[in-house]
């Protein structure tokens, strides 16, 4: 499309230039002042000179010329006229034509500029310019943290000595505002649990605080709340918004991403353990190098297009994948909109197009996909030692196996049941030229064998590499990975396996010569991923002459398959009828064996996780206008140069690139990282950050309302070894946080948005907290943590996935919403309407809308109606009499406060007339229920 036309034709340019310069000897020295400046003055200077710099370009400063304007393209490449953007646009050889209006430059004028560039674009010393200071690098957020000591006003508000209050009070006083009084205990405890856990406090939790008259009761409560695992579940959700976490791929197929949840658990765990934030950052960029490989789930948490276009479109798709990583890294950690520099220099911030591609080079080797997580070296050592112990114990225990003492049991002599992973057929040595595996029945569909091995002693004589030849009754057509040749290609696993064309059939190996064989080994999938297509009734025939078959082994030689058919069955042990001491010994071995097996299973469990795959990338180029076919110079991996550099070579090792970037971002001296994260914490406490553009700390974002406070908090974070909980503690124990939320006329008038915090700003809970709170109040909340999520949808599994809202709910749906599989593009049918992000883009701040669909969902949905009924049942369980005590309990559970006498009696009479579920439905829809007070 346009890109093709945009490419200037080098030859035509040279032809044009050659004809234009005939009047000039090649050796003529161009003088800038005499020859070039007049041309610029005539055509260019009005827009690109001292008065105006359209598109950020200025032609009277050599350093700026070499850098170029906003396009990111150097205007002049010394000695290379054809590669100089300036020449291309004035010669009319680019999409962009300069000057845009009026007469174009004459061929002679173009020739002057051409020769001037070729000769090195010399300019008088006074125009040589400074090595450019980046635009915007004096912006506040790029400066080191200011260490402003907290003010020390005299005011009851700051009597707790918390510097947060001192800074806030100063802001209030400047506007003639007074802080609000401390909120009552009930309000504070409810607010605390809702903000920090996304769940209301239980009656016991409320009472514990109400009855705690120690002076530090609040600080103790804060500690209890921070120590609860509910904290990590609540605050991880905020992070998932920022990093566009989702568990489907998005785009048109929107297929499931079933192994994304380990990253979700990792974030929750990290927050609960108060992992230092700098480490949390490092692990998300380069956890594979830091012993926390799940962390890089961050890089690939975004959408991924499974449908690949061809040619240029594929390149654009790849650029978009990387753009998603670059942009999310920039906004999430740095509050920098790096993505804006993809096509041209950043319009507001000191991010050049080269910077963008330098960061792209950091991620250039990151591919979307699952990886099987490695076990740590310590774990591996432990596994080896456990294996040794398990082997020894199993051997010792063998004499207690059921049947071991009863020789009459014919099964005892048989081989283990046929299983998908590995089967051995042993028989008396026999001479054979042909070995035929005849399948009479499978566990499901056409049989599959990944490798058929025939042994003469220790030698597999069936290998194709030794000259053996495979034939079969038929092979499944159309699958390269299941062709016949795979049955003896020496490779294991489903990807190198033979599948028969029919449910029964045979595969035969012809040995290069007659051999004496005594053993055959085969499997469905030695890698253990597939267990279908397993031959379960079969025989193995051998022959020296064709068609003189003799059966040497069959499925009848194996013990029958157990119910859980595809797993090798464990032997059973029998300790009865033995001398006491011997039985005790046996039991103790068995206990130990089971414990060792359990431990092994637990520590070796490293399923696949969607954490990306890393490969060494090729070179990264800057792309003119961000178009993949407009490659410019090679760019080495780097940070944003105005803020720091990584000192990496263009071909630096892939992992080192990410480590270097991670270390730069997580450095104590990076001015952005700590500011950005303490601002996010502040935002989720007060509904709005000190900077209300939480993912943009650049020039286009807003300035903080309390700059010194922001810096002071950021400094404290670093000083406390990046402990997020320490910042929470500071905020939560402040008078600011504990204020009442009632509006005052004066506050409303001066600061309607409550940015100065003359009160605690009340607000509606988010979707997740509303849902979780309902489950908590109705008494059915399942607090199980971690592992695969539950689904909010019924999924129609076509190539393109379709998600239909669930129609019925049960206990499996009663976990916290953070464990609901996050489907991109689809809203959960009840709570999604409460501004849930759709996972397509990072969302730093949810909108907080109020819509009739929310009302319909909360008032009419099956989910809420069911919860109302469960709530009513709980009330009836706890207060069997349908009386005023039950109504009081309903209020206490829903709102965390006792009902006033008239409220309780009104509720009772309503419930008596319309039923308790109706009362509960009203309570769960009430403003008081869904608001942080």
């Amino acid at each position: 499309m346009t890109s093709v036309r945009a490419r200037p034709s080098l030859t035509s340019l040279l032809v044009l230039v050659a004809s234009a310069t005939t009047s000039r000897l090649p050796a003529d020295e161009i003088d800038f002042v005499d020859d070039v400046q007049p041309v610029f003055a005539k055509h260019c200077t009005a827009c690109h000179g001292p008065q105006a710099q359209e598109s950020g370009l200025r032609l009277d400063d050599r350093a700026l010329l070499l850098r170029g304007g906003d396009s990111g393209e150097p205007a002049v490449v010394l000695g290379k006229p054809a590669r100089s953007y300036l020449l291309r646009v004035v010669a009319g050889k680019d999409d962009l034509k300069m000057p845009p209006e009026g007469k174009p430059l004459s061929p002679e004028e173009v020739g002057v500029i051409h020769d001037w560039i070729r000769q090195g674009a010399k300019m008088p010393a006074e125009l040589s310019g400074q090595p450019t200071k980046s635009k915007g690098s004096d912006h506040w957020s790029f400066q080191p943290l200011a260490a402003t000591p907290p003010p020390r006003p005299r005011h009851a508000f700051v009597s707790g000595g918390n510097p947060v209050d001192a800074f806030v009070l100063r802001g209030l006083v400047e506007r003639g505002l007074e802080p609000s009084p401390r909120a009552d205990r009930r309000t504070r405890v409810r607010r605390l649990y809702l903000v920090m856990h996304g769940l209301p406090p239980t009656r016991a939790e409320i009472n514990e605080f109400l009855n705690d008259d120690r002076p530090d009761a609040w600080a103790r409560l804060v500690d209890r709340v921070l120590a609860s695992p509910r904290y990590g579940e609540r605050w991880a959700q905020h992070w998932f918004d920022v990093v566009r976490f989702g568990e489907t791929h998005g785009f048109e197929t929107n297929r499931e991403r079933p192994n994304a949840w380990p990253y979700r658990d990792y974030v929750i765990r990290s927050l609960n353990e108060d992992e230092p934030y700098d480490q949390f950052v490092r692990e998300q960029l380069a956890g594979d190098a830091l012993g926390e490989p799940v962390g890089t789930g961050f890089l690939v948490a975004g959408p991924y297009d499974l449908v690949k276009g061809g040619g240029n479109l594929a390149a654009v798709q790849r650029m978009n994948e990387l753009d998603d990583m670059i942009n999310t890294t920039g906004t999430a950690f740095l509050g920098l909109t790096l993505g804006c520099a993809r096509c041209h220099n950043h319009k507001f911030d000191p991010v050049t197009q080269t910077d963008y591609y330098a960061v792209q080079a950091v991620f250039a080797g990151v591919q979307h996909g699952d990886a099987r997580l490695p076990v740590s070296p310590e774990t591996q050592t432990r596994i080896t030692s456990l294996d040794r112990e398990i082997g020894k114990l199993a051997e010792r225990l063998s004499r207690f196996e059921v049947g071991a003492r009863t020789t009459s049991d014919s099964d005892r002599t048989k081989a283990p049941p046929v299983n998908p992973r590995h089967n051995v057929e042993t028989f008396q040595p026999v001479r054979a030229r042909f070995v035929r595996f005849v399948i009479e029945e499978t566990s499901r569909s056409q049989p599959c064998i990944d490798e058929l091995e025939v042994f003469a002693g220790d030698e597999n004589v069936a290998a194709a590499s030794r000259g053996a030849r495979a034939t079969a009754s038929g092979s499944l057509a159309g699958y390269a990975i299941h062709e016949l040749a795979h049955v003896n290609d020496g490779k294991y696993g489903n990807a190198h396996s033979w599948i028969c064309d029919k449910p029964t059939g045979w595969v035969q190996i012809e040995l290069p010569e007659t051999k004496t064989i005594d053993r055959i080994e085969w499997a469905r999938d030695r890698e253990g991923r597939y267990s279908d297509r397993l031959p379960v009734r079969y025989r193995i025939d051998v022959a020296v002459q064709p068609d003189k078959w003799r059966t040497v082994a069959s499925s009848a030689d194996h013990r029958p398959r157990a119910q859980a058919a595809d797993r090798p069955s464990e032997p059973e042990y029998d300790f009865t009828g033995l001398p006491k001491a011997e039985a005790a010994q046996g039991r103790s071995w068995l206990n130990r064996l089971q414990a060792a097996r359990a431990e092994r299973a637990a520590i070796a469990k490293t399923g696949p996780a969607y954490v990306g795959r890393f490969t060494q990338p090729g070179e990264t180029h800057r792309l003119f206008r961000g178009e993949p076919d407009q490659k410019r110079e090679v760019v080495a991996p780097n940070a944003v140069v105005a803020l720091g550099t990584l000192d990496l070579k263009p071909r630096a090792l892939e992992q080192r690139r990410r480590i270097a970037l991670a270390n730069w971002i997580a450095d104590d001296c990076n001015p952005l990282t700590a500011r950005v994260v303490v601002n996010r914490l502040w935002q989720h406490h007060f509904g709005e950050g000190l900077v209300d553009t939480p993912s943009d700390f650049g020039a286009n974002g807003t300035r903080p309302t309390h700059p010194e406070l922001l810096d002071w908090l950021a400094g404290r974070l670093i000083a406390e070894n990046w402990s997020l909980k320490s910042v929470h503690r500071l905020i939560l124990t402040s008078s600011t946080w504990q204020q009442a939320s009632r509006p005052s006329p004066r506050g409303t008038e001066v600061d309607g948005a409550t940015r100065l915090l003359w009160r605690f700003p009340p607000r509606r809970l988010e979707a997740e907290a509303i849902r979780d709170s309902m489950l908590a109040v109705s008494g059915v909340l399942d607090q199980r943590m971690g592992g695969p999520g539950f689904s909010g949808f019924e999924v129609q599994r076509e190539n393109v996935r379709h998600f239909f809202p669930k129609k019925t709910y049960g206990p499996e749906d009663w976990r916290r919403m953070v464990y609901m599989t996050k489907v991109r593009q689809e809203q959960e049918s009840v709570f999604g309407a409460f501004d849930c992000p759709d996972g397509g883009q990072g969302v730093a701040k949810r909108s907080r809308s109020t819509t009739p669909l929310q009302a319909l969902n909360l008032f009419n949905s099956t989910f809420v109606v069911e919860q109302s009924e469960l709530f009513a049942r709980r009330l009836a369980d706890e207060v069997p009499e349908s009386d005023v005590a039950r109504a009081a309990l309903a209020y206490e559970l829903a709102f965390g406060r006792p009902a006033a006498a008239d409220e309780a009696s009104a509720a009772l009479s309503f419930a008596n007339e319309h039923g308790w579920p109706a009362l509960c439905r009203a309570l769960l829809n009430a403003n008081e229920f869904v608001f942080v007070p």
Partner: protein
Amino acid sequence: MSAPLPRRDQPTRRRFLGDMAAGLGGIALASLLDADGLLAGEDESSPIRPVIDPAQPYAPRVPHFAARAKNVLVVFCSGACSQIDTFDYKPELVQRHDQPLPGGENLRTFQSVQGNLQRSPWTFRPRGECGKMITDLVPRIGALADDLCFVHSLTSKTNTHGPGENFVSTGNILDGFPSMGAWVTYALGSENRELPAYVAIPDPRGTPQSSVNNWGAGFLPAAYQGTDFNAARPIRNLARPTAVGEPTDRATRLFLDRLNTRFNDRYPGDTELAARVASYQLAARMQLSVPAVSDLSTEPKSTFALYGADDAENPLMAAFARNCILARRLIERGVRFVQLFNGAYQTGGEGVSNWDGHKKLAEQYAKHGPILDQPVSGLLTDLKQRGLLEETLVVWCTEFGRMPTFQKGASGRDHNPRGFTCWLAGAGVKAPFSYGATDEFGYEAVENVRTVHDLHATILHLLGLDHRRLTFYHNGLERRLTDVHGHVIHEVVS
């Protein structure tokens, strides 16, 4: 407002504390322009962010300048409806039938390499008084040619359905951006206080490829998301729960109101709390109004006959026709933006339930043509006879075009983002008119080449909105429907 504190996004409820008294009962027009916008009025590129009272997000708001159209009705053909077989007449393609596409030897499009040029299986004939050449696939739409304004030179950035739908519906090929309807309702609110401001009507066969992303709110407030329902499938959770009797339901609302009134007294003047109360009231009205608007039984027989909604022979057409009647009823009631989908992916990809005719185009389009033709022509005719076309802009579009060739070894056309057709009708649109052109085969736009951004800019323009100034601040950018692109196609404006 005496607090010039830094803030970036739209005003929250507390900026409206002072306006509260006027707020709730009646729907006052909050058609103020943002103070920033007013002050910067001279600067023609400064953002104009609509000032929205959170208590009344759907209150009607004034446009930037005099509007030609009040409402928009988009007919979206999912699957990429071929311009070659409908509206883009190329005699040369008939001449060169079954010859190779010049320069197409090594051309590999979305799915396949190219076979030879293929004329449409349907004959083009002159239609209307203007004589516009349109095929026999859509003769009834063709008959209305005098009311239509064709843009034959649209281009897309992608040749893949999901991104293609996203691009046409949201101006961005990625997911997660606000749809055109969301932008429009964000800017203008709604004229109807009983119905959603923005309705998406999925095809009876299911949702399009990109599903809800076509009518999502992206980063705009959720209030501006399209509400999806059609004549057969109502709004989710609209109806009273079956387990709850009507008197109890009504009593519960009243009880809830009392709870809220008492609680809200603790926060005098808080509009977010008041807005929740208002939202339950609107929800209650919708519980009546949406079934009423969806109940087509009040329509006369003649309407059913006009749209083909009574056709027993072709139940798919009849079902889509009922959606078309619903669309008219919504427009009639002042719903700001209606998006009507023709074609779905749920019930069969690749041409089975949509226009994605890769392999068996003649066979598949023979089904899809009639499903589209009579209902949409009926809709246009009905809108016109009721005078609704004077204030309603109708846009027919699809994700991108198709190739003038058949795919090698198949009897259908591959995707082609290089040139495709849409048409406009109604308010502010020049008709009959054809603008732009593809090359002699209908392959690549060559005359007045236009982008989807240009189409969006034009639609906003007709609504009295400057696409460069209608913005929403998100993640460091003043976001626009048209990103940093788009030029109004003034030639199509009457």
